């Protein structure tokens, strides 16, 4: 069953056609990768899928329903969660508070509930904290709960950001270059983690520069080049694809 489908998406910036008529599908429960050299349009495509940019043409379907053009918070409410290439934590808040914000879409207390400490809001608050701590447990960063997020080491920040995205119990998780800035060993750990996330029932779409991560964990890989899709197949086939080899290794 297809969970997410990108259909004929194009995006222009002035005269630059960053993404040109790209289509692909992400089956439920899969780990799908999007790779391509710098400037291939990966990040733009990612922003279109997550609601940060509206496409000029084409559709993005989540469970068959169009979501292109919806604002990011509305897309998030439909079960899509994401991380950022250059980690975006709320630096002045604790790690736990960061992860608790991830629970925003699964909770509803408003101004009145919060100001008056209504019973419903207090109950929900405990549930939010529990879910956030569970997510931190899963990533092995529970002991960092009270640390200010801005003072964490780089790898810890990545983990907290992932916990925040997972706290939303998303149906699909979008990872924007999760291996950026990691060494080989950390990248190997990340690969295992991505598989564990999928095993929890979360479909994963990851955009990546690092071939080893993508080839190691993805069920299917989309290859972009100058905004166009040049391959969409399991890793082994992609590695043998002459077009892909040409793009990556030169002729």
């Amino acid at each position: 069953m297809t969970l997410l489908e990108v259909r004929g998406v194009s995006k222009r910036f002035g005269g630059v056609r960053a993404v040109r008529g790209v289509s692909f599908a992400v089956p439920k429960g899969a780990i799908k990768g999007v790779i391509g050299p710098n400037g291939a349009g990966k990040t733009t495509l990612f922003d279109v899928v997550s609601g940060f940019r509206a496409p000029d043409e084409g559709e993005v379907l989540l469970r068959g329903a169009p979501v292109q053009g919806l604002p990011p918070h509305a897309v998030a409410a439909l079960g899509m969660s994401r991380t950022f290439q250059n980690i975006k934590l709320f630096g002045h808040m604790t790690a736990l508070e960061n992860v608790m914000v991830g629970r925003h879409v699964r909770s509803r207390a408003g101004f009145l509930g919060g100001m008056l400490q209504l019973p419903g809001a207090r109950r929900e608050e405990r549930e939010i904290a529990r879910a956030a701590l569970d997510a931190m447990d899963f990533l092995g960063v529970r002991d960092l709960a009270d640390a200010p997020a801005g003072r964490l080491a780089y790898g810890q920040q990545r983990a907290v950001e992932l916990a925040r995205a997972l706290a939303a119990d998303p149906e699909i998780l979008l990872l924007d270059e999760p291996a950026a800035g990691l060494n080989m060993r950390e990248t190997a750990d990340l690969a295992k983690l991505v598989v564990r996330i999928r095993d929890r029932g979360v479909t994963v779409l990851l955009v990546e520069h690092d071939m080893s991560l993508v080839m190691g964990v993805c069920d299917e890989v989309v290859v972009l080049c100058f905004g166009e899709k040049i391959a969409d197949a399991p890793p082994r086939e992609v590695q043998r694809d002459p077009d892909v080899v040409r793009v990556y290794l030169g002729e």
Partner: protein
Amino acid sequence: MRGRPSLQVVAFAVAVAGVHLAAQAAGRGFFLTQLTMSAWYTLVVLGLSLLMGYAGQISLGQAGFFAIGGYASAALTTLDLAPHRGHALVAALARARLLVPRADLFGGEALSVAPWAAFAVAVALGAAVAVAIGIPVLRLKGHYLAMATLAFGTIVSSVVVGSQGLGAADGISGVPPFELVPGLRVGGGGGDRVRNYYLAWGVVALALWLLLNLIRSRVGRALGAIHGAEDAARAMGVDVARLKLRTFVLAAVMATVAGSLLTHYNGGIGPSEASVLKSVRYVAIVAVGGMGSLWGTLAASSVLNFLSLRGTFGTWDDAVFGAILVGVMLFAPEGILQANLRALLRPLGIGRGEEGA
């Protein structure tokens, strides 16, 4: 374990009582009048502190909302509908006690809107204007937002000065006291001084408790998230525009309430309350207290407003607040009271728990 808002507010109540007793013991009971006025202004800056420090939005138009509250209450409670007594609508409103008789300046009987009804209209008007202004204006950021809210403040100010119906340069006087419950009225009568002092600071304590709760709640975290990394907040499902608007309206309503009640306390309101210089003063006080510190704002507001109302700054009053704002921005953008006050209050459990948001 973070500081609990309820305990912090209890500590605050003790301080309020302490100041009263100290003023009394020093034979300076009349200070309570300026302290009461200072409390109502503090309500304005607490709302602004939430807006600036937690939601990261500036408003140079808070005096406009204060004036809307003050002038709505003043105009409605001093108008005279007695000549229209025969009109069916007026008669119906009078029967519903929305209109009440009162003695006019010449001893005759006038028929005016009841203070609580005027208060309800004032607050509804303030909230409606905040929504109408907020929706377009909050799309702007930084300097542009500051300029747009400044323009709003300027408009309110010119409307007030230019309207004969609102007393133009003289303002409106003869505003009756506002009886909240029998025996407790917002008004300047000498016998009510102590009660008004506790009433005003009680309202401030209530507002403080509500805001401290808010910043520790789901909404408070979302506000902190917007402030910290707006993109990430949006990706986590935070509806940024809606949250900013609601915070803006909350701050505006607090200013409106303060405007209405201080006008009843003073028995009138003049156009200086609507001036842009007042808005600048509110921003300066929040800046001194430290962005994102309700306690710092509270302390800065109590002291600076009290000194200003006692006439300490003389004719330099507005200049002092302008200079304070420039000084804070240049030398201590985090707020003068921020670091020191926190260090001072930490042993008491005050000031914790709000650092995060």
